[in-house]
């Protein structure tokens, strides 16, 4: 590193090392990011769909809420498991601190979980014939819960990106558009899940509409992804080789965007069948799986940045 050119150095001290400490956020957090976005994205998309186009998406939306609920429970389980002291998870609710995205997120998730539970409980009670089908009062309560749930769901989807971008970790701290990416990606994931549900519930008209929407949202998601990439590219260039960066980029874009869009456009409405499943449905399912896999891949890669940077720094200090 000195002016004499590289040769027998004893050490570079602390200069090449990252100053910050890497938090122990590993695989669990990548899954947490995914399940948070799967739940909130699915709920938000279903709610917007039910409220804006009840004739088209109403029936599929009703099937979506229990799925969003299960994903929320999974996410909460992951969040608690990742704590250093899981039995103290409720300490998060001791205070409300808007200055802490994690506090805001905890309260958002809590407030999101309550009306969502009510919605799922109402649907379950109707399914078990404990509540009358078609009752105006029940329907109004359910719809009110959907409307009330939208705001905390919005908060739950928004806090994740800001949580990471307001860190001091290399890469994360530069990602100003991470929150935008997460919000956009969550809604794209939500639309993809709703497409899968539409296919499963044989809502052909909804499925046809959702194919176009998924394709548009997935392509739109390239914009915030590109912004985030531009913001963190200097850190990436410091850690990884050009070949590694472009391989990851190509993988994410091809797996999470191009391949699903191709499948949705090529397979949409294809009536021929492979066994019990039509080719169109199979294309839809594979497209949805790829969108989810792409979402997981990009989140995992992003989470690894401080870890990789730290390792690189340690190696650098010993050269």
């Amino acid at each position, binding site marked *: *590193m*000195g002016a*004499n050119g*590289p*040769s*027998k*150095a*004893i*050490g*570079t*001290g*602390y*200069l090449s*090392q990252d100053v*910050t*400490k*890497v*938090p*122990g956020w590993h695989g669990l957090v990548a899954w947490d990011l995914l399940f948070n976005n799967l739940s909130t994205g699915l709920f938000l*998309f279903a709610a*917007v*769909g039910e409220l*804006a*186009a009840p*004739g*088209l998406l109403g029936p599929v939306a009703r099937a979506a809420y229990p799925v969003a609920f299960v994903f929320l429970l999974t996410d909460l389980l992951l969040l608690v498991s990742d*704590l*250093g002291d899981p039995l*103290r998870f409720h*300490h*998060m609710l001791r*205070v409300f*601190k808007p*200055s*802490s995205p*994690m*506090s805001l997120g*905890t309260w958002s998730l809590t407030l999101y979980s309550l009306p969502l539970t009510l919605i799922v409980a109402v649907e379950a009670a109707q399914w078990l014939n404990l509540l009358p089908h078609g009752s105006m009062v029940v329907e109004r309560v359910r719809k009110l819960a959907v409307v009330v749930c939208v705001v905390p769901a919005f908060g739950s989807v*928004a806090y994740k990106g*800001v*949580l990471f971008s*307001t*860190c*001091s970790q290399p890469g994360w*701290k530069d990602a*100003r*558009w991470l*929150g*935008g990416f997460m*919000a*956009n990606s969550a*809604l794209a994931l939500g639309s993809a899940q709703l497409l899968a549900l539409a296919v499963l519930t044989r809502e052909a008209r909804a499925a046809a*509409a959702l194919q*176009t*929407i998924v394709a*548009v*949202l997935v392509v*739109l998601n390239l914009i915030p992804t590109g912004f985030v990439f531009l913001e963190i590219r200097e850190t990436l260039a410091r850690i990884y080789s050009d070949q590694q960066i472009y391989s990851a980029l190509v993988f994410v874009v091809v797996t999470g965007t191009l391949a699903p869009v191709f499948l949705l456009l090529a397979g949409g409405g294809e009536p021929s069948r492979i066994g019990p499943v039509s080719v169109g449905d199979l294309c839809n399912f594979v497209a949805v799986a790829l969108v989810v896999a792409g979402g997981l891949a990009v989140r995992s890669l992003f989470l690894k940045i401080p870890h990789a940077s730290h390792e690189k720094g340690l190696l650098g*200090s*010993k050269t």
Partner: protein
Amino acid sequence: MGTRELELAGLHQTSDPPVGLLGDIVNRLTWPFRYGHVEPQPSTGFYTDTTVCIGCKSCEVACKQWNQLAADGLEWTGNSYDNTVELSAMSWRHVKFIEQFAGNGRPTVDDASAPAATSRELTFDDLLNGGGSGRCASDSARAGHELTLDQLLNGGGAGRWLMMSDVCKHCVSAPCQHACPTGAIIYNEFANVYIQRDICNGCSYCVASCPFGVITRSDFDGHSHKCTLCYDRQKDGLVPACAKACPTHSIQFGPIEELRDRARKRVAELHASGVTGAYLYGDGPTETYSALHSFYLLVDHPSVYGLPESPFNPWLHMLRDYGRTFASALLTVAVIVALLWLQEV
């Protein structure tokens, strides 16, 4: 009595009269209100003069002894003779050794305007051959050369050791405190950043937020730990253990304004003695970061000591980041509604 013992003493003891579940819950809920108001005291902190640090690590030992912290184990890092490596959940003080001897191992930084050392660097061959082109300080002295204080600090022209006792910076506006979602991290009455270990649940957000890499989550109890600035000792009117143990007064403790005055005088003294590169790090706020209640007198770039060149409080971005997030989400929802409307039509 250590901090841990003080905290434990506040909890219900087995020798106390039995309390039922309801009584326990009521006690827990009302305790913060019954605790009473704590009168703010003058802000205290550390001033660390790295020019007089001899790397004896007595501060580390004193800290471990007073706070009853177990050893982390010793490890050779491969870049210095330091074998306690870094601050951790069990090491709240760490003396950094910066060994500026190797020709090309010598750290360099881009910003030439900032203070930097000017020593001639000892090459690897010098070390192997015991001389050659690089004479050490004692050689120079034997040869009758008059060495200035600056030359001595710079190794007499033959490379040098820098030593710095690192600790939590007790930032006036601490990112870890902003981040903590449980309210475990507080400013105590001495304006020191303090982790209430009975509240921390180990979410690690403070670890991710600290720009100085101070806070660490313990693998043992899963909670975050760092220097308490010997809160328990301060409450009893005592000096923190590290400052008490420091044999060269490299670590000084006291009311922060008094320390700043003392530090500025020391810098002026060093400048007058020819150490023009001496400066204070963290004694005042910058555009991107608050002042530190543990500040340093340094003679080389901050990054050489493992400190950020210009620390940035990540919370300065928060509102705009939320703005981008909501704008992006609303725009996407608008696209979805438009597409649904088109599909329905």
